[in-house]
């Protein structure tokens, strides 16, 4: 009997373009991005890092609610997103608010989502996305459906969805990639492998050496990417998108990354399951440091430019919080009205009851 596992696993090498010093180590794979586009990518990463810092601070002040920190994962989140077009549809997991913001969700609405106000979930017209999914992996089967729908409509667009390393253990993960493969639907499945599902290390999720190899069982393309290398993430996603819209089927992209902060701001303490040494090792690979150094060598980035982005981010965050504060208070009657297109009589009664309660 021929053994195949080792052969398959050895095929999955980590795709890289920049090393930790920001030097190109894979010239052939270098994506075709103009200087302005490269700067824009840096702009987004710096902005998002500041947004994360401010969000954590606002959460601690009690001015934000549910928040899942993003620092460390910027290249995985924004590199994948940068390869998308406006018409592409995003099905994010709970940590993937940055992609929604760069896809067009106004910042004040992202804050309302965090605060548990339904307006945060109302995507503006033309922003093709769902609000973040809470159930791990549920978005994978939905992405297969959105992609199948795009294929049936003859659209040249893709559905992209995100989960983490823990998500690859869910049944819906397999069903999602398998359905999309069976229908050759234009979907991109991203696994941000940040090494821990809350506290459980990826080694305890699976015997598989890579998560990308799970694509093989579904008969679709899979690639493992250095998720701290924004150019590699971008290039892999861009290629997956092109294949998808050319009718060549879905792709599973595993990005190797790390979240610097806790799982969420609701009391998780990473020192219970991660070592300081591990944190330090990953911080050396920081996606911003690396890309900044790449851009500086090209003369495309300076401290002055970075400070400009930081100031802009802070101003916009301040304005967005103010706007979020000004939104009308959420009412139970609003929720009741959003249950059905036409309210059945039992909800009509309850609407009346809560209209009365909330008018007091």
């Amino acid at each position, binding site marked *: 009997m021929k053994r195949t596992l080792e052969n398959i696993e050895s095929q999955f090498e980590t795709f890289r373009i920049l090393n930790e010093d920001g030097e190109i180590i894979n010239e052939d794979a270098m994506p075709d991005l103009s200087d302005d586009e490269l700067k824009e990518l840096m702009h987004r990463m710096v902005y998002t890092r500041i947004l994360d810092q401010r969000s954590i601070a606002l959460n601690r002040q009690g001015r934000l609610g549910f928040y899942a920190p993003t620092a460390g994962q910027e290249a995985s989140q924004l590199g994948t997103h940068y390869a998308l077009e406006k018409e592409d*549809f995003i099905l994010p997991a709970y940590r993937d608010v940055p992609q929604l913001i760069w896809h067009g969700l106004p910042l004040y609405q992202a804050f309302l989502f965090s605060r548990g106000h*339904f*307006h945060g*979930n*109302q*995507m503006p017209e033309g922003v093709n996305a*769902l*609000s973040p999914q809470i*159930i791990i992996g*549920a978005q*994978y*089967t*939905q*992405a*297969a*459906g*959105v*992609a*199948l*729908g*795009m294929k*049936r*409509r003859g659209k040249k667009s893709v*559905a992209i969805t995100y989960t983490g390393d823990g998500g690859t253990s869910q*049944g*819906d993960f397999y*069903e*999602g990639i*398998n*359905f999309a493969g*069976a229908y050759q639907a234009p979907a991109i499945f991203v696994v941000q492998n940040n090494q821990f599902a809350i506290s459980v290390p990826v080694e305890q999720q699976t015997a598989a050496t890579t998560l990308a190899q799970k694509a093989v069982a579904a008969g679709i393309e899979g690639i493992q990417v250095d998720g701290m290398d924004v150019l590699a993430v971008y290039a892999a996603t861009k290629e997956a998108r092109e294949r998808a819209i050319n009718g060549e089927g879905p792709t599973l992209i595993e990005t190797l990354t790390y979240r610097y902060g806790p799982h969420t701001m609701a009391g998780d303490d990473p020192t219970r399951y991660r070592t300081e040494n591990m944190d330090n090792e990953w911080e050396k690979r920081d996606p911003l440091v690396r890309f900044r150094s790449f851009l500086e060598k090209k003369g495309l980035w300076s401290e002055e430019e970075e400070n400009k982005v930081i100031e802009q981010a802070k101003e916009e965050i301040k304005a967005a919080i103010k706007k979020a504060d000004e939104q009308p208070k959420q009412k139970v009657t*609003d*929720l009741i*009205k*959003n*249950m*059905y*297109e036409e309210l*059945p*009589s*039992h909800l009509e009664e309850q609407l009346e009851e809560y209209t009365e309660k909330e008018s007091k």
Partner: protein
Amino acid sequence: MAQMTMIQAITDALRTELKNDENVLVYGEDVGKNGGVFRATEGLQDEFGEDRVFDTPLAESGIGGISIGLALQGFRPVPEIQFFGFVYEAMDAINGQMARMRYRSGGTKAQPVTIRSPFGGGVHTPELHADSLEGLIAQQPGMKVVIPSSPYDAKGLLISSIRDNDPVVFLEHMKLYRSFREEVPEEEYTIDLGKAEVKREGADVTLVAYGAMVHSSLKAAEELEKNGVSAEVIDLRTVMPIDMDTILESVKKTNRVVVVQEAQRQAGMAAHIIAEIQERAILHLEAPVLRVTAPDTVYAFSQAEEVWLPNYNDIIERVNQVVNF
């Protein structure tokens, strides 16, 4: 007019809506070439093509998930869960996701999905085929649950369900698929969701039922008539939302009620209906409202099925208790 069985009426409704609206998609396990294990989709793939009527991989959660995605792309999906006992695999997709979409998107996204599925006892299936699980869905705000009891109703209710812009679980009792034929118009027609029908008028007691229990209740009513008890029989047709107006109107006339369900007794639709009746019409009641249900065990192995399932004798017994209270 044609004479149709319930399964033929269902196929006819699917054909009608596939013709009417190019966004309607019909799919599930074995629904394509095979026409479904009960032949509900017989001939539809030939008529409408593989892009509109198609087989899926064998995974109920995946079927639920792609339905959500297809609806987000403006389609009107009509997936089939091959047997409703398999729905546990898809419970997150249905109750956890589909039901919440309009709510969680602040009214900006709809899920016009109709999930068809056979269920119901008395046909000697293996485990997890026959269970009455309507209560699982009815408990989830955002869902509608429709259960027809006749070919005529099946066609009109299915067309209404498909046209509805909220998710509907449409449950087809297996025992009724081919048990009788009736006149079904060939042209299209709809029956409003959430509207019960008085199947038989009576003066002494009201029987509230749905699905196959409508027929057991009608048979019980015939027997009771011989003993001078006049029973009114209400077919709910939609079990969520429930047409309380029709029930209450009848209660105010008969002052006595028995609620009949094929499902087990615990935490069932009947309990909910009885709570609503006593909250809204207690002064009209001459006796406690009783239930006819299956016992609180897991669905019976088929050797014990005949006794386990509620039948018209059980209904007569309960009616006599209520009438002689």
